[in-house]
């Protein structure tokens, strides 16, 4: 008799259901079984109508974000062995996003925010590639390296109560990405991105709950990115004010 574990999965079929409901499955347990493995087993052998996103299985594509016992996790990197004591495991779609279907969230709001902050290298003058690479020392790369590790999984948005309260908040992922470019020594676009940081829905919606950084599977530390952005925003505000008072209105 194989060892079994109970996996409760939140279901939602827009064509049939008015609201999400819970379905319980028994999955054969093994030491290295991930939540994703369990979901695939359920889909293959028990209920093919279960929809979930996944691809790489190695926590680099960012597809498989779900809530596992009320914590945002990547299903491919979360293992049933860590939930043995708790007995059952409950899996549902990420918090703070509308549910498209079962475990599939509508993350279009998050994608829009990513696109808003001008997340590309901005140069005043482009040089031809024939002139070689822009120099950048390892120390300079360290300054933005962590903020550049984001896999766009959305766990930070699921963890952020400010985003939960107001989806217009640009959020940890987008703001960390903005900072990734702001702090890249090759970039010259911080002034242009300031409008996004400065906005009410920019860094100023953040109250430093810090959960985003706690749940991030890639140690991006978006909380640090946002709150450093507050300092930058303050300085920008002060400089503008000074200029206005001096009669140099830059608006």
């Amino acid at each position, binding site marked *: 008799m194989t060892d079994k574990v109970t996996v409760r999965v939140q279901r*939602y079929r*827009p*064509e049939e259901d008015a*609201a*999400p409901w819970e379905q319980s499955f028994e999955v054969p347990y093994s030491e290295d079984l991930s939540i994703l493995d369990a979901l695939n087993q359920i889909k293959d052998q028990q209920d093919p109508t279960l929809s979930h996103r996944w691809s790489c299985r190695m926590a680099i594509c960012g597809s498989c974000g779900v809530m596992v016992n*009320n*914590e945002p996790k990547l299903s491919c990197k979360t293992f049933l062995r860590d939930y043995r004591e708790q007995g059952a495991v409950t899996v549902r779609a990420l*918090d*703070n*996003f*509308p*549910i*498209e279907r079962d475990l599939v969230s*509508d993350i279009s709001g998050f994608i829009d925010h990513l696109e808003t902050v001008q997340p590309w290298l901005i140069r005043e003058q482009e040089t031809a590639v024939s002139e070689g690479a822009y120099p950048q020392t390892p120390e*300079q790369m360290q*300054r933005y390296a962590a903020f550049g590790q984001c896999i766009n999984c959305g766990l930070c948005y699921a963890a952020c*109560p400010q985003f*939960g*309260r107001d989806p217009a908040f640009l959020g940890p992922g987008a703001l960390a990405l903005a900072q990734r470019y702001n702090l890249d*020594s090759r970039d010259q676009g911080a002034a242009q991105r300031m409008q996004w940081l400065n906005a009410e829905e920019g860094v100023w919606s953040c*109250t*430093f*709950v*810090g*959960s985003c950084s*706690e749940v991030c599977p890639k140690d991006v*530390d978006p*909380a*640090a990115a946002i*709150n*450093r952005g*507050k*300092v930058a925003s303050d300085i920008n505000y002060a400089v503008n004010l000074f200029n206005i008072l001096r009669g140099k209105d830059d608006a």
Partner: protein
Amino acid sequence: MRKPYVQRQRADWWLRNPAYRRYMLREATALPLFLYSLLLMSGLYQFTRGEAAFLAWLELLRSPWLLALHGMALAAALYHAVTWIALVPKILVIDSDRLRVSPATVKRAHQLGAVTCNAGLLLLALLLLRAAGGN
């Protein structure tokens, strides 16, 4: 057809996990401090009304409720200071080609600043009391 289910944030969202509860406690330190500042303002007002009024207000402060408020406000201020100083190295990052200050140094500097300011103010208050007591 498509019909996304919008999940509304629950009013008790912060009860959900320990990290959120700690966050709300940190934010809640504003409450005792707010009440304490109201108390101080009332004292200032009594001060403008003359010595008798002010002394009466001082006497009021000895009541158990207000002593408790003092205790809570102090605890709140300390908790806020500790959690704030823990976060400062994330916020104040000085790391450019021209100047680099380590996060540990930033933290130490704030701790030192906090201790110095508080000790200094306390010393000042004691000195003023001594001077006043001498008259």
